[in-house]
């Protein structure tokens, strides 16, 4: 189990440092890996996630592009088909809408349409997450859109350890992988070992062991769930926090096992609740653990509104430790 390692290291990195280290290590390991995107070179992205990579790898492998998300994503699809391993940087997750034909009609379908002859080993890194006071076009979490498309893999890391290991696995994967990073987590610190490791796609991780209720949480919502679990402990409720880590492939077994053990489940995700990731995860659990559940599976996601600018309005759109705590307490009858 890869996760045994992180308890044994003293070294701490931020989420952003873990991402950068994963990229640097893979670029050293494989000369076909390159980075493509807006302001990725000298600027190292507005979030400074890529700072220093240009200096080590040069302009041939860290390429600034025009503001042409569809164009450079399409370029990456073709490059991936012909021997390269592109890592595309889409600055804000909201801009993925501009890449949809390249990802949905091209990258996702090339392997199948060609009868398995061509493959597209590329990674699209992008961001998600609200509460940064960036309003409706810089705050969305649109990962569910990609989960709906056969041929794509979708990764949502929640810790520096997972971010590094999952990104390295994504770069080595033979398929198009969309990798969502919560902007608010870039400064989150956590243990990351020096040794080379990957976290396989499709393996969930139990972030906290508990007995009374399961909180299935993704990305930014993992920290919210852990905070809520601490509050719940104070009133005598033991909450288990399970992080699927990848939306597809999906580790259904771990989710169902936890649900069977605790008999109560809340699913948390920062994407829109309607027709979103929480609906799929709740369905998996409700079907797989039906006879062991003591309550209907509850879903908590973003409100069905464009993300507002005004801080009190924006904060009301996403689940918080307090709202999760209240929901869990009610479900447990306390």
């Amino acid at each position, binding site marked *: 189990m890869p996760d045994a390692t992180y308890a044994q290291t003293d070294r701490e990195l931020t989420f952003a440092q873990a991402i950068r280290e994963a990229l640097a290590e893979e670029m050293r390991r494989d000369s*076909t890996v*390159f980075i493509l995107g807006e302001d990725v070179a000298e600027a190292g992205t507005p979030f400074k996630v890529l700072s220093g990579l240009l200096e080590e790898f040069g302009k*041939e492998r860290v*390429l600034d*592009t*025009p503001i*042409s998300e*569809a*164009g*450079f*994503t*399409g*370029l*990456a*699809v*073709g*490059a*991936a*088909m*012909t*021997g*390269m391993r*592109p890592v595309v940087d889409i600055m804000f997750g909201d801009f993925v809408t501009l890449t949809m*034909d*390249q990802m949905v*009609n*091209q990258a996702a379908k*090339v*392997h*199948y*349409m*060609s*009868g*398995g*002859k*061509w*493959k*597209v*080993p590329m990674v699209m890194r992008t961001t998600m997450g609200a509460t940064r006071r960036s309003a409706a076009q810089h705050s969305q979490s649109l990962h569910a859109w990609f989960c709906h498309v*056969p*041929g794509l*893999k979708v990764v949502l890391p929640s810790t520096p350890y997972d971010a590094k290991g999952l990104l390295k696995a994504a770069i080595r994967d*033979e*398929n198009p992988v969309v990798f969502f990073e919560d902007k608010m987590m870039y400064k989150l610190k956590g243990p990351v070992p020096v040794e080379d490791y990957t976290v396989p796609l499709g393996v969930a991780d139990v972030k906290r062991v508990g007995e009374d209720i399961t909180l299935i949480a993704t990305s930014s919502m993992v920290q919210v769930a852990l905070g809520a679990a601490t509050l719940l402990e104070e009133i005598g409720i033991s909450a288990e926090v399970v992080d699927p880590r990848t939306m597809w492939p999906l580790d259904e077994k771990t989710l169902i096992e936890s649900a069977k053990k605790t008999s109560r489940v809340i699913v948390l995700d920062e994407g829109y609740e309607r027709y979103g990731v929480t609906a799929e995860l709740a369905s998996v659990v409700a079907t797989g653990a039906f006879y062991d559940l003591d309550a209907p599976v509850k879903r908590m996601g973003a409100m069905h509104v464009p993300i507002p600018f005004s801080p009190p309005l924006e904060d009301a759109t996403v689940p918080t430790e307090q709202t999760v705590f209240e929901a869990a307490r009610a479900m447990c009858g306390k």
Partner: protein
Amino acid sequence: MTTAAQPNEISEKTGLLLHMHRQMVAIRQFEAQVNELYTRALMPGLAHLYIGEEAVAVGVCEALEQTDYITSTHRGHGHCLAKGASPDRMFAELLGKKAGYCKGKGGSMHIADPATGNLGANAIVCGSAGIATGAAFSARSLGNGRVAVCFFGEGALGQGVLYEVMNLAQLFKLPVIYVCENNLYTEYTHYTETTAGDILARATAFGLEAASVDGQDVRAVHGIAQRLVDRARRGDGPGFLVCNTYRYHGHHVGDINREYYRSKQEEQIWKTERDPIANFAKWLVEQKLADAVELDRVQADLEAEMKKAVDFAVAAPYPSVDEVGEDVYA
């Protein structure tokens, strides 16, 4: 720089000329059989015939090496054949058979073949512009000397992504040639109703080497394509080639009544006065490079070969239903 085509600058080697004639006839005979399969209700779905445009695919692909890349379109049979695909496996794909190039999963609009550098036909108009540009990026990064050609119809001039990738190709000096097949009709609408300004100027604005050529003249197409391919391969950057051509049939095989968007008289003029195969055959005979009997025999041979390929495809088995979930992920 905009440059006029120079028919005289192409290679006059007889072998190449006769090969180009043969390739054009092969495409026409292939497409005639496709139409036949449709009218006999043996083909699932539809197909978009390339008849009338043969000189474009052949002239361009004869300027390429086998390891060079192409991307194709919904009207892609001609490109696939010109790049070296086998008719039997193409027909099998058109019929959804396991022996097809894509195991029956792609069909007429998605034929792909790594062995001939065919990155795939694409049913999104302009859908492969990014892919071709990316293949050229790989060629430059890996230093393998390959060139990529992106075939697209003039309808793709309406897609913004074309201008995004032409800008990228010029910035990165990529060995890619964008080949615009202007067959005058964007489905059922004349291109002048959808295309403002000057087509070539759209490419020269980005600094691409741009040219337009009579797409019914295979020697002219080949000559200008060779020049653009050679300079791209040298590292001198991307090119853009407009081939002015005409599709004899409808947008697809079922588009029979076309008079609401173009006249029978117009079709007749192109077929009788500007046919790329008839005019080229006449020229070959006039130049004493071939005799008419020999050329007729080529046609008869290819007709027989295509019928045999159709028989193979008709007799070939469908894939097992168990295969539906395979090849989603590599």
